[in-house]
Every structure is written in structure tokens, then in C-alpha cells.
């Protein structure tokens, strides 16, 4: 017999006819380590989803949408709370830059992220005890001046880091712009109250009716606290610099909204009201004017078209539905009337340069227009009130001068929110102030711990190109719409206009998420792998394991990854000379490997010795 006396060396012995145990069993794929045929290796490399990237406070949006999709609401709420102290507020008021960035917007309709955030925020509001706990006390005291979005956020993060935080608020009630700048029909007061209570539950002391510079001075802050965050916001309204602006019946946007919000408003509007300005506050003022009894509300803007207005298109749409009129391309040049306003004098006007950000050119030569009104509300932005601050920390724009980390020189004072962001090119909005507050809190913490502040250097990869994902896995599916009160009835009440998602709606909407560039444990790689080299003992995000001893680099999982988080990385990087392959070209004690070793030592040996 020709096979008589044959022997198979131990290292090449395999089970019967090459039949192997399952990969999950002992030895599994070890018997046939064909992974060394591979020239590329699939690697789970999560990108930053564009929504997370666009969010002012970098909420982990993809993460909580995925958790909502899986019904893990409390986990989702805990995740959102890492970056956002009050999702119930931003879930109502945010101008959602995330939704503008959402890749789904290029495909059918962007995910209604804000509505899901509100769903989670309301869930948090209903909890008897919040999931967030204060940090281990570190014995340091921090003052936060201002309880608006930036101050709230900074105080919240500092409390979580273990600081003893005291908030000073000028008004009788905490909340800042959240309270004073946002009408009840967008954000009911009790929602905000609950979020302020959460701060108190974290051990934060809130002192109201304390004005910086008057009731508490720069020196006192310096003496009584280890550090301080100034988040005083923009308080003084800008004027239109028109003749007769001091007449009775002339109001300013934020104070108008604030007094109504605080319940201290004495304003009685007439039948005809004009609102000056084209931004979001102007829209809120116009819609509030209707609710305060005005019959005809006209919005007068320098912008020539609605598209040019620096406002949320949804809010503009809802405003027009409620019956507010638009008048474009005009500037107020005088407030007419005998002691009390009875008309506005208007001239044609346009921006001299970039829209919304350049001086206005008024065509004074044109024939003035008379526009009869009973009241005017001027809402063209605010400025800071910083008389009490040492001059060295003021900018020419009248804001606080900070370094890139939000710090005032080398002091332990930091500043955050609108008071530093005005004029920075960053749109002024709640979520940006929250993000600012968060980052400043972390920077402050570093300084307190004696660490060096260094700018972030890790490059961020964000998927903007749909071709980096596998779109065949995403059928077109329309956005779940939030219900709105009908325009005719809502224009007369303070009831919330936009209605909350039901649980089913929130889940359905969260399920639309592409999870751009981030593993959402969809199991597709596990299913399509032609060899069983993807294991999922733990089925959660990014926790698949690729058995590289066996993966031959066929790319099927990479091509079929819906989210684009799987990438092919070359095993032999010829440019850098890095050999990533961990199995070389033969199994470790293999024939090829041995021969290569022997060839090195063959020298001039005679044939019989080879």
C-alpha cells in the first residue's frame, strides 16, 4: 500500500476531512487560519454622525435615537443628559442645527431629532428622582453668574464634577433667557421650573435678585469663590436709532417677552402692531403680540425676502399661518405721533454687504412711507451690560474678552454664552450657549486640577457623503410629523403650539436614523459574512469581534455595512512600511515559514546536508 508508513506531523493534523468545530467552540477557527490570505482587514471605525457634529453641545444624538429605537428610554435619557441639562427645554425651543445637518434630509426628510429629544426630556421630567448625581465633593466653590442656558449648563456640569456651585441671578426667578426670552406657548413655565428644581437637587444654591456689579462685585466673587463662570447674557436691547423712539407704545423684543414670562408685564397692545426685525425673537414677539390681543401684526424687515431672514423656517411658517403679515426691504426712520406712537415712518433699505451682518443702507432720498400702528416692538438684537467688569476684560464689541478656552486672562474667571459669542460668527441660540457652558465647565475643572489647557487635535471624520453608506438598506420613509394646534385657535392662547410625540411616534422616528458612520449593532456584518468570522457574543454597539485568523478580507461586510462604520484597512501599508498582518504568510510553524528560515542558513552546504 502506497500510503503505508505515511505520517502527518502534529502541527498539520486536522479533524476528520477538514471538518472544524463551530467558531464559537473551543479551538474553533484556529484549525484553518486562512486569515493570512487577507490583504485588507475590516475594522469598525465609528465616525462622528453629522447631527452630533452640528449640535452646539455635541449631544450623542445617534446614540440616543438608537436607544429609543430599542425601547431603552431611560438609557437614552441618561445619554442625552451627559451633554444637555434640560432636554425638555431644548426639545421645545432648539433651532436644531442637528436636523439641518441630518443626512436623511438629503434623502427624504431629516429626522425629527428635537421631537425625540422632547420625548426624552418629558420622560425625565416625570421621574421622581433624576438619573444624574452630583460628583464627589472636591471642596471647591464656584460661582456662576446668570442662570440662562450657558450658566445653567456650566453649573450643572460643575456640580457633576463635584464643585459646590452657587448661581447668582438678577431676576426674581431663575432661568434667564429660557424664562424671559421664550414665550409660554413654546416653553411652559412649569417645564422650566422642574429643570431648575433638578439643579437644586444636585446641590446647587440659587440666589435670585442678585445683580452682578451691584449686589455682588468682581472683588467679592474673586475673594469668596475658587472660580467663577460669567454667563450674564445680553440684556440691553438694541435700538433702531430712529427719531421718536422714546415715545409711549414703543417696546423692545426681549423685555417685552421677559415681562410676560415673569408675569410682571403691564403692556396693553392696541389693534395694530408692528414688529421690527427678521430673526427668531422678532417672530416670537409677533406671535406673542397676537396672543396679547393685537388684531393686525406686521413684521417689518430689512431683508428683501423671507428666505433671507435669519429665522427658523418652521417658526416663520407657523407665524404666517397665524396671520402675521410680512413687509420687506424697509427700515424705520422715525416713530411718529404726539407723545404716543400712531405711525412709523419707513424708508426703503437694504444691507450694504452680507445679509444680516453688515450696516444698513437706507434710501433717504426716496419718498417716506407712513405706516399707521398702535404699538411697535423692536427686536433687532441685544447687547451686553458690563459696566461693572474691569476694562481689561472687555472687547470693542462690548462683550467679554476671553481666550480660546473661555478664560479671562490667567484669572480663574471664565465666561460662556451669548455674552462671549456675540459677533463670533456663531449663531446665538440656546444649544450653543449650553455647549459653551459645558466646555467652559470642563476647562475650569482642568485649571482647578492644575492641568494644562490644550486645544483638541484629534481629527474628526464626519460622514456627509451618502455614498459612504449603503443606502440600499434604507427605504424612503416620511418623517413623523408633530401635531400642531390649529392656527385660528392657537393665536389666542398661551397653550403649547407644538404637541409632543407619543411613544410609538418617538420610536418610529428614531428608527429612521441612518446611524451615519456609527455601528448600531444591526447584525448585517454578522449575517453577510460568507465565513463565520464575525462573532457577537455581546450584541451592542461596536462590540462585534472579527476573527482575523480566519477573515480573508473579502470586503462583503464592508460593502454591506449600512452605516459605513466598517472600513477596509490595508494589511500591508507600503507607504509607511507598517505590517499589520499578525499571521504573516504561513501558519506559524508552517512549511513556508520553515523553509524561509532554513534558506537563510543553507550557505554552501553540499546537497546531502540540505
Amino acid at each position, binding site marked *: 500500500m502506497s500510503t503505508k508508513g505515511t505520517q502527518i506531523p502534529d502541527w498539520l493534523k486536522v*479533524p476528520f476531512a*477538514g471538518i472544524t468545530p463551530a467558531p464559537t467552540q473551543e479551538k474553533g477557527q484556529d484549525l*484553518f487560519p486562512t486569515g493570512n490570505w487577507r490583504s485588507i482587514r475590516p475594522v469598525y471605525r465609528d465616525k462622528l454622525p453629522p447631527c452630533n457634529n452640528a449640535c452646539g453641545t455635541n449631544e450623542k444624538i445617534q446614540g440616543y435615537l438608537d436607544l429609543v429605537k430599542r425601547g431603552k428610554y431611560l438609557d437614552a435619557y441618561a445619554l442625552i443628559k451627559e451633554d444637555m441639562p434640560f432636554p425638555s427645554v431644548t426639545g421645545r425651543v432648539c433651532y436644531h442645527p442637528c436636523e439641518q445637518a441630518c443626512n436623511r434630509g438629503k434623502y427624504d426628510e431629516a429626522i425629527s431629532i428635537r421631537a425625540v429629544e422632547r420625548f426624552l426630556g418629558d420622560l425625565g421630567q416625570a421621574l421622581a428622582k433624576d438619573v444624574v448625581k452630583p460628583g464627589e465633593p472636591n471642596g471647591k466653590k464656584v460661582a456662576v453668574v446668570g442662570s440662562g442656558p450657558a450658566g445653567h449648563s456650566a453649573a450643572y456640569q460643575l456640580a457633576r464634577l463635584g464643585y459646590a456651585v452657587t448661581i447668582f441671578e438678577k431676576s426674581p426667578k431663575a432661568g434667564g433667557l429660557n424664562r424671559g426670552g421664550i414665550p409660554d406657548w413654546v416653553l411652559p413655565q412649569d417645564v422650566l421650573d422642574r429643570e431648575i428644581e433638578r439643579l437644586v437637587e444636585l446641590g446647587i444654591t440659587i440666589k435670585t435678585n442678585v445683580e452682578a456689579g451691584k449686589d455682588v462685585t468682581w472683588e467679592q466673587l474673586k475673594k469668596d469663590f475658587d472660580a467663577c463662570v460669567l454667563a450674564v447674557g445680553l440684556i440691553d436691547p438694541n435700538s433702531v436709532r430712529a427719531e421718536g423712539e422714546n415715545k409711549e407704545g414703543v417696546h423692545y423684543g426681549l423685555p417685552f417677552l421677559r415681562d410676560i414670562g415673569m408675569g410682571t408685564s403691564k403692556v396693553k397692545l392696541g389693534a395694530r402692531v408692528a414688529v421690527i426685525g427678521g430673526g427668531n425673537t422678532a417672530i416670537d414677539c409677533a406671535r406673542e403680540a397676537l396672543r396679547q390681543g393685537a388684531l393686525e401684526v406686521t413684521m417689518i424687515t430689512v431683508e428683501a425676502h423671507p428666505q433671507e431672514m435669519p429665522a427658523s423656517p418652521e417658526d416663520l411658517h407657523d407665524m404666517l399661518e397665524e396671520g402675521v403679515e410680512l413687509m420687506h426691504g424697509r427700515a424705520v426712520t422715525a416713530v411718529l405721533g404726539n407723545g404716543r406712537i400712531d405711525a412709523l415712518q419707513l424708508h426703503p433699505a437694504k444691507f450694504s454687504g452680507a445679509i444680516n451682518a453688515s450696516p444698513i443702507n437706507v434710501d433717504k432720498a426716496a419718498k417716506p412711507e407712513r405706516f399707521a400702528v398702535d404699538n411697535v416692538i423692536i427686536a433687532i438684537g441685544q447687547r451686553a451690560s458690563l459696566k461693572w467688569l474691569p476694562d481689561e476684560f472687555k472687547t470693542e464689541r462690548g462683550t467679554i474678552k476671553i481666550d480660546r478656552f473661555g478664560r479671562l486672562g490667567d484669572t480663574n474667571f471664565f465666561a460662556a454664552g451669548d455674552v462671549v459669542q456675540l459677533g463670533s460668527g456663531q449663531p446665538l441660540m440656546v444649544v450653543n450657549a449650553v455647549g459653551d457652558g459645558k466646555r467652559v465647565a470642563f476647562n475650569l475643572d482642568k485649571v482647578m486640577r492644575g492641568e494644562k489647557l490644550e486645544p483638541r487635535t484629534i481629527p474628526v471624520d464626519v460622514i456627509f457623503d451618502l455614498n459612504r453608506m449603503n443606502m440600499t438598506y434604507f427605504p424612503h420613509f416620511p418623517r413623523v410629523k408633530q401635531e400642531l394646534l390649529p392656527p385660528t385657535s392657537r393665536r389666542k392662547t398661551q397653550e403649547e403650539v407644538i404637541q409632543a410625540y407619543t411613544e410609538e411616534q418617538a420610536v418610529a422616528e428614531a428608527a429612521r436614523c441612518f446611524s451615519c458612520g456609527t455601528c448600531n449593532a444591526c447584525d448585517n456584518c454578522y449575517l453577510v459574512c460568507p465565513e463565520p468570522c464575525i462573532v457577537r457574543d455581546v450584541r451592542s454597539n461596536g462590540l462585534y469581534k472579527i476573527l482575523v485568523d480566519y477573515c480573508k478580507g473579502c470586503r462583503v461586510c464592508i460593502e454591506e455595512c449600512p452605516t459605513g462604520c466598517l472600513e477596509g484597512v490595508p494589511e500591508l501599508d507600503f507607504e509607511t512600511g507598517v505590517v499589520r498582518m499578525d499571521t504573516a504568510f504561513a501558519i506559524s510553524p508552517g512549511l513556508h515559514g520553515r523553509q524561509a528560515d532554513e534558506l537563510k542558513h543553507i550557505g554552501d552546504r553540499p546537497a546531502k546536508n540540505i
Partner: protein
Amino acid sequence: MATATDAKKRMVRINGCVASAQAAKYADVDVIAAYPIRPYTATMMALAQMVANGELDAEYIVADSEHSQLSISHGASSSGARVFTGSSGVGVQFAYELYSPISGSRMPVQMMIADRTLDPPGDFGSEHTDALSTRDMGWLMGWSCDAQEAFDNHLIAYRIGEDPRVLLPQMVCQDGFFVSHITGDVELPDTGQVKEFLPPYKHPYPLDPRHPVSHGPQIMPEQGPPLQLERARAMEESMPVIEQVHEEFAKIFGRKYDAWLEEFMADDAEVVFFLQGAHAVTARFAIKHMRDRGMKVGMVRLRTIRPYPTERVREALSKFKVVGVIETNMGLGSVSSGGVLYSEVCAALYESDKRPLVLSFMAGMGGEAIVLKEFYWMTEKMLEAQKRGKIEKRTHWVGFEH
């Protein structure tokens, strides 16, 4: 599990195709993969009837080609089923890809083959080239010469192939028409005899979701040779098993076959025919005819070509002066420019002290019968060579030479 209808031993008059179908029924097969091609089709027709009328409880799968037939068989066998399939001629060729993987994964699939000439152009006649062309793919292979032997060989092949020492697929071949379509007396056994002879099939590592295993994974180049060596070992180590099974078959069924060779009037013969399959039946008649006229001629019929009984062939043929190989197959441009059997014979004889002269006869080609006068003609050629002590030429195309 399927059960053949309990039956007592009885004689029936059936053709080779039906005999094969009966054998599959008695073997209580679990899966049948069918696709029609003449002349084996009648086997699948008979089995379809048996499944339809409840005689046999098996999965009868009509494939969309021979390639699928063998793929189905491979998968079914991997899951632990006893599988029966079959084909003829170009159908055998079309499934070629599967032969090595099936034997490589050691799946004892059984394939019935009723030979048919390969094209061109379509010829329904028998020629052994279809199955012989796959002879080195790791399948056990042998030819029957009549319906009874066909029936018996199917049961014997299952028993050998499924033996845990062997685990190899089997091609059970019969000549198209000469066996497949000619009716003869066949003894169908008692069901109890078959149960005693052929235990249920049990693969050691079947595909089973409760105990997952991988069959046929990709391997490293250096892992190939050990697997090939093991397949070669299985082929060689099957030889004692084959002999043992034939003995047990004789004990249980009362029909004794030599596992490797049938020798007919060979004891005192000086020249012999060496052949496979159905032409042995006419050869026996012709040899008796010639013996009556004093010609010392005999026959050695090869029953099992894979594994090839080299030693037995050498021992059996060394005692003759001339061996005439009746090919019934094509080996174009081969050693003898005739058929492929010649080289198998010569290779076996090469190490013999007394090497007979060997001639190759291209006879029975295209499904033609080999007639009496052609046996005389071939015998004359062998006797001439014996007289002269050397051959005139290696290969003779019978019927085309004087």
C-alpha cells in the same frame, strides 16, 4: 425513517434500471436527487412511482441539472441522510465539479450510472468513458454485468462506503441498455436480510444546528496535502473492508462474488480477455464456443476498478501468455492510443517476473454489441502474438481491420 415494504424473498423479472431502483428502496434511502437523461432515467421513474405510491418514504428532489443533483446529494449526505442519485453520459460530466468535494468531505453519496457514449453527436449507446473519466476523484467504482449483480452491487457499495473506516462516495455502474434495458431474473431479498446487512447510515460529524461544525472550510496550502493523504489512505484502507463486506454479503444473501475479479475458464487458459461490465455475458458464450474448438481462451472481468486491485491483477494475469483488454472506453492519445484500461493493466504487470503480452481492443464502442465473430477475430490476434512472441501493434480497432 423510511421503510421499504416488508417483503419476503422473491424472484422478479426486471431490467437493470429497475433493479437499481429496487436496491435503493431496499437500502431505505432518505433523499433521492433526480434529473433525467437516457438511459438511467428509468431508475428515477421507478423510484418516483415507489415514493408516490407510498412504497418508499424518501425526499424525492427533482434537480435542475446534474450539477444540482450532486450538490443536493452533497448537502443531504452532510446532514446525515442516505442519498441516492444517478446519471448517464454527458450528465455525469456536467456534475464533474462536485466529485472531488464530495469525496474530499468524505460523504458516502451513492450514484448509479448507466453508461452512455459521450457526444459527439448524441449517441445513446453504452461506453464506459463517462464514469471512467472520473475514476481518480476518490469515488469507489465498479461495473455490474447484469441486473442481479447491479442490485447486489448497490447494497454492497452502501455498506462499504458508509463504513466508518471508509466514508467514501460510490459510483455503481452498469452498461447502458445491455444491463439497464435488458430484462433478467433478479432475486429480491427478504427485508430482514437487508436490515442485517446494511445498518442505518451515521456520519460522525453531520451538519446539525445543535452541534455546529463547518464542512469544507478554506485551508492553507500546507494543509492540503494532509487531507489528500487521508483521502488516499481511506481509498487504500477500504480494500480489506471491501473484501470483508463481500464475504458477509455471500453469507447473508447466498451469492458469492469475488470483490475484485471474476475469472471465467481461466485456469488453463493461455490467452484471456480482460474487461468490465456487460460484454462479459457475451464473452462467456464466445469463450465456451471457442473452447469447443480447442482454443485455450478465458476471461478475467474486473469488478472493482477503484480502488484498483493492483496486486490481484498482477497475480491473476501473470500466468497467461497474452492478455486482450476489451476497452469499451476512449483514451484518445493515451499510452495505447486506445482506451484507458490498457495502462492500468500494464502498470499492474510491470513488476511481474512473467509479463504477458498485452493487446488493447477497441470493441463494443458506441453501444455496439461485440459479436461472436469479433471474439474469434480478437482471439486470433492474441494467438498470433503468442506464436510470434511479440505483438503486431498495441491497439486494434475491432471491425475496422482485417
